[in-house]
């Protein structure tokens, strides 16, 4: 099982963040390797992502089913591989963030292992070597985030709004919000250990990259609105 959690504080009110995030096409293309998105209904979507492992690459179709939808606070979803044997779980958690000084938003990341989600199916017990790898990875993550947090304090350059994208926050930022993105992927089948090994280095940067782009979209847009 591979998991990654990343969190950021945004100079954008909870309501605006939610309005943006709840429209999947607004941000789908920020996913690493995004190729296309098919919205099946208000709960189900099918994503085609291009997995890139070094110089090997493959398109992977993943079905995403929303399982929890709590406006302004939480969305959870299940992942099912359609072209590969994998399952997964993810969630967004949104909450008001405490006010900060005028220097700007503060990037933040949890330095503890994420709490496992409530699931009806039990997760397999990791083998010893796998547990050690996870522990090493977590320690590395903590160190990396320590270094990274400083760079995240600087607001990124505003992103160009995506043509045809649904509405982004339309009001000037009057509040702040705390957004957590958690992703868990569990390759299945006999080749799972190898798939895990290949995917593991990609998931954590993918989560960070994703939230970074969300921030650019939200705060960049807000600033655009401000400027107007």
């Amino acid at each position: 099982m591979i998991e990654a959690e990343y969190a950021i504080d945004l100079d954008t009110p909870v309501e605006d963040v939610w309005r943006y995030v709840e429209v999947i096409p607004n941000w789908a293309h920020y996913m690493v390797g995004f190729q296309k998105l098919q919205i099946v209904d208000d709960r189900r979507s099918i994503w085609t992502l291009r997995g890139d492992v070094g110089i090997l690459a493959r398109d992977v179709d993943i079905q995403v089913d929303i399982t929890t939808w709590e406006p302004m606070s939480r969305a959870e979803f299940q992942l099912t591989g359609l072209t590969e044997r994998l399952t997964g779980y993810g969630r967004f958690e949104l909450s008001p963030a405490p006010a900060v000084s005028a220097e700007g938003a503060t990037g933040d990341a949890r330095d503890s292992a994420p709490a496992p989600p409530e699931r009806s199916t039990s997760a397999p017990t990791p083998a010893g070597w796998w547990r050690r790898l996870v522990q090493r990875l977590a320690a590395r993550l903590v160190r990396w985030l320590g270094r990274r947090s400083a760079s995240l304090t600087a607001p990124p350059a505003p992103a160009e709004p995506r043509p045809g994208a649904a509405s982004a926050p339309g009001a000037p930022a009057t509040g702040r919000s705390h957004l957590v993105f958690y992703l868990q992927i569990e390759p299945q089948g006999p080749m799972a250990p190898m798939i895990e090994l290949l995917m593991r280095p990609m998931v954590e940067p993918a989560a960070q990259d994703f939230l970074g782009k969300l921030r650019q979209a939200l705060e960049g847009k807000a600033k655009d609105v401000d400027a107007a």
Partner: protein
Amino acid sequence: MPRDVDVVVLGSGAGGLTAALTAAARGLTVAILEKAPVIGGTTVVSGGSIWAPANRYLREAGVADSLEEAREYIQRLTLGRVDEALIDAFLNHVNPMLDFVVANTGLRFVPNMEHPDYQPDLPGARPGGRTIQGGLFDTTVLGELRTKLRPTHSTVPVTKLELDQWGMDTLDRWDWALIAERTAKGIVGMGAALVGELLYGALRHGATIHTGTRAVALRTGLDGGVVGVVAESADGPVEITARRGVVLATGGFEWDRQLVNQFLGVPMVAPASPPSNTGDGLRMSQAVGAALGNMTEAWWGPMVYAEGDTYDGQPLFRPTSGLRTLPGGIIVNRTGRRFINEAMNYNDFGKALAAFDPIRYEYRNLPCWLVFDQRFRDSYSIATVTPDSPTPAWMATAPTLEELARRVGIDPEGLRDEVTRFNAAAAEGRDPQFGRGESVYDRYRGDARVSPNRNLRPLGDGPYYAVQLYLGCLGTKGGPATDQHGQVRSALGGLIRGLYACGNVAASPFGPGYPGAGATLAAAMTFGYLIGNAIATT
């Protein structure tokens, strides 16, 4: 980057590295230039086997073999198109080459007693033991260069023994936890291990390697001899003087569409090698007047393409060595007819794919498909699709053979009739049409769990599946013609001083033939060894 060395080797596959190792071990200064950002060339994506007739491992096992038998076999395979001196050079030096690399690297080989020659019923062929295989390699000994070793697309850190135990096309039975653990530790196997050992040996003897450095021209002296190379690197153009010689080991031209169309003369669309094989060495040799040979030939093979998979930014075509031989599947052309023993060695199978119908004015067997039943799907892996994986879009499926045929473009009646006829004989373990399962080669690749013929059984219940196969190759094998020392011949007669070639860039000593598993590497390394020695004694 050095500007003045004894030997410049262009390319970092097994041929180039063996030349570099040999020259460096003989006290020469050697610079290896690799145009790709990674090291290893086509060898990395290979099985790493070496075909060595009358090898010492066979002798130690008390198995009789002789160079005379091997000579008879190669002569038959080459159809009289190859200079006898080249064949003799290979036969007389493949085993000394092996002794040399074993003495100068960590390479250790074991013979595969079960792996038959590719045309095992020809005179002089052997049913096993000429193909030898190495072990695993720990890339951490390479230090920073570890990350420069080309990632492989189809081989994993497993030993021959493990592969034999797990089965080539039963990926679901492999110990993937062990494989992942080895991979995490930087251990590689097969062709990557061969490259790692040769590279490490060459470096220890003082050779240097420079990736991302593409040779674009050969510098010649007043007599037309080659005295150096011009290369492009990240730092700009660089000119390197080669006091003793330049070795072309740049691989084939299979990824250059223009050269393929110009020379191969058949629709080879599915090379299974790294895309950096674009005929650089061929072009440079032409520019200095090299004689060419064997230009219409390649190490042919039918390839499968898992649509969307790429390697180095190009479509990833995978060989089908074992897949075709398994019971429960047949290969048919658009008429629904079989056209060959599916379990035939891949090189000669490829020639059947290139058959041209002059009446209909089309390639008779292109496109073609591997058609199989649900039991086949439940039993074997197709590319990386294990039995429990979702069926991908590139694997057509339908409840009946007729529907399947219509879906992919096969004549439904032809397919139905062919399967009916095939099934009747297959139920008795026979293939009266093509003799599938009769040769020791066929049986080596079959499924031992199926009897009475491990390559045959009737296609059973649906749903049925079809996967298109493409005419591809592991690499081309035509290029500058050489003498028995690997020195390039001039188109005007004589030899070009200072220019040598080995591996897929050169005209193969095996002509149109493919003697057995590892023949590609064996020829490349033997001539690399001969070149290293020839340069050292120049």
